[in-house]
């Protein structure tokens, strides 16, 4: 029983082993490839789902829909030309230091006698305590430039003296704020602040004081009448030569 007699057997076994090894390697490669393909398939499926979802969200949030929401609810507008800044210096220039009033500091009154009111007879004397009281609207800091929304009712054209009232009609919230008339008994900003707080606590839902009606009703009435009456100007106000005679064309085309 020498090893030589098993030589051919060894040969066959090693050959079979090598073949098996090769086959195993190939099998391994094939299974790896299958796994990669599987992942690729899942990627494609995920991409398809993403595409579907993107299409859906794009359709739901289409630009015309956003525009409608913006007009109805958000009333955001494009930034105005003044809101663009060149650099950090311009930005720094915008924030000037604000004068802070320390409410806890002891009130120091000047001992000098107050000068007599020099207002001539017949003119109302200005209330000195009310003068420094800023209107509450001055304390509100708005984040961006406020531009008028498109949704406001038609504006009166000819009613020039009422222009400020019209503006307040555009923004009913600010119009609803009470004028600081009774703040004379409380000094300074604190008065204004507490007044606002008081009003808010008294009318949590409706912050519209009765003044609003007296301010807004005539203006609304004015707009209503204005939309019916069409005012025609004699000449085109855009023209810089309004004094000249306006020629009426009859027989030839006129472009302007």
């Amino acid at each position, binding site marked *: 029983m020498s090893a030589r007699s098993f030589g051919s057997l060894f040969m066959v076994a090693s050959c079979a082993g090598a073949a098996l090894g090769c086959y195993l390697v190939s099998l391994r490669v094939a299974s790896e490839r299958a796994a990669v393909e599987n992942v690729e398939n899942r990627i*494609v499926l995920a991409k398809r789902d993403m595409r579907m979802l993107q299409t859906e969200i794009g359709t739901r949030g289409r630009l015309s829909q956003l525009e409608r929401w913006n007009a109805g609810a958000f009333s955001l507008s494009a930034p105005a030309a*003044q809101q663009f800044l060149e650099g950090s210096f311009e930005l720094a220039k915008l924030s000037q230091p604000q004068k802070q009033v320390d409410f806890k500091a002891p009130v120091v009154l000047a001992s000098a006698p107050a000068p007599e009111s020099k207002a001539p007879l017949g003119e109302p004397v200005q209330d000195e305590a009310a003068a420094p009281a800023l209107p509450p609207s001055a304390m509100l800091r708005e984040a961006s430039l406020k531009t008028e929304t498109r949704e406001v009712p038609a504006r009166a054209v000819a009613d020039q003296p009422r222009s400020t009232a019209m503006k307040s009609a555009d923004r009913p919230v600010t119009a609803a704020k009470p004028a600081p008339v009774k703040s004379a008994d409380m000094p300074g900003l604190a008065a204004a602040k507490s007044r606002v707080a008081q009003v808010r606590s008294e009318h949590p839902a409706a912050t519209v004081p009765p003044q609003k009606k007296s301010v807004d009703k005539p203006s609304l009435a004015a707009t209503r009448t204005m939309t019916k009456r069409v*005012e025609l100007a004699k000449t085109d106000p855009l023209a810089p*030569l309004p004094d000249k005679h306006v020629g009426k064309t009859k027989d*030839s085309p*006129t*472009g*302007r």
Partner: protein
Amino acid sequence: MNAPQPALVAHRPERLRLVGQRRQMLAVMHQRLMFGMLVYAGLVALIALRLIYLAAFGDHAGRKEGLTALVPERGDILDRDGEPLARTIDAWSIAVHPNKVIGDKLALAEKLAELMPERSAENYFAILRSDKTFVYLRRRAPPDLVEAVNAIGEPGLALDREPDRLYPQTTLAAHVLGFTGIDGHGGAGAERAFDNYLSDPSKRGTPLVLSISSKVQQALEAELGEAMQHFSAIGAAGVIMDVHTGEILAMTSLPTFNPNAPGQAAPEQMFNRATLGVFELGSTFKPFTLAMAMDSGVVSGPGQIMNCPQVLPAYGHIVHDTHPFGRQCSIAEVMMESSNIGMAQIADRLGTERQKAWLKKMGFLDRVEIELKEKGRPLTPGSRWGPFETMTIGFGQGIAVAPLQLAMGYATLFDGGIYHPPTILKIGPDHPLPQGRRVFTADTSYRMRSLLRLVVMKGTGKKADAPGYRIGGKTGTAQKIINGRYSQSINLTSFAGVFPMDDPRYVIVVMLDEPKATPETYGFTTAGWNVAPVVSRTVSRIAPMLGVAPAMNREPNMSEVLPFIHDAKQDSKKD
């Protein structure tokens, strides 16, 4: 006599013959065996080789074919920023095989009418009783409806998925995109113009990128739509173009339609006013006349003085102005006040032949060069093109072009005088900028800047100004021909603007068809009152998106024109 004759030759011995035969047979058998074995071995080898090949390179059993590519049925259309404008999705369709219905047909018809109320129960019952094999009940059905129909449980109802074209932005840029019919082929717009590209299996994997910017398009459509509603106009059109490349960033025609449901649109909505419609656009033509005259040497520049009478009798007609000067005036004033009398004289000096040659060179006598198939042919006086027609064309009456052509003309004038054909495809590596063609000289192009800025600063287009964006442009109020005569009250107003004027980059053309007067326009229906504010609002919205930085202290070189303006206010102060 008949006895067999003995053989003359001796016979071979029998045994020897047998041995020879056996040997031969054995050889044949060996041969056959060998052949069979070879065939068998070959077959085994073939199978073995195939197995080895499959083991090494073959596919496995679980492979899913066709999923690796994700090629849509029809190519996507994207805007220039990659936002999808048209996509193909899998939609549900609901159909019925009337002959396969096994349940109660009357009850089924009632249920269907309840779920899909576009037809009555009688209608459904008639369909179910007909001898048709297949009837579509609803295409592009929403998933909840499909679920409800499936819940009926009738085997005769067929629920299928089919590719369907979806326009996610609905009406946005509808006339540029067009629509697809039920057969999946384009019926208008880019869908029609690029139908081969979009349906080609080898190309449809890469989307078609348009030059349209959906945000700019939305801004233009919203502002124009609002103006159209406000002034009760019957139609409107708008184009925004890149001056340097001819790319169309936005193009709209109102009233518009929803390409998702093209069947519901009226012909009026389908009509593309921006490219297919041709209109006499009026005074917006005047800058071209002046540029032609300056390039031909007929006019020296904005400072040239000419006679501007109250009315101008010419060739048996009378030319009028809305605000006649009645004095000597400069070219700059003619432009600023949009004087027909002044412009008619300039056109007269230019002459018919030169005017024709210039218009031909600018592309105003042919259909506009654009990929879309909906292109209108410009209308010209043709054989009646005499000296008076030359005058009227000088101020924009008597020639009808598409609004896109007007935008193209302005782009040519302010791109240093170089013409690029307008395109709706994004200029990029796939679609390089074609070689331009010089029409006007660079000097003329430069001098027109301050003239058009003057119109917006001091002239008829004041309401078009957007602070900081240096808009220059020209208003145009053309009278419409009603029953063969120019109407005095029915107008077509337009504004052609360019911004920023110190370095022109974009052209905007807007047009309103038959706007009506409102209280705030004081009864006027001229362009300065209705379309100019649209330009101002649109530019304020889009300029930051387009990278035009606002600058309050930049202007074109106004010293070229301002010295030639007669200032009435200063005169009255001196008096």
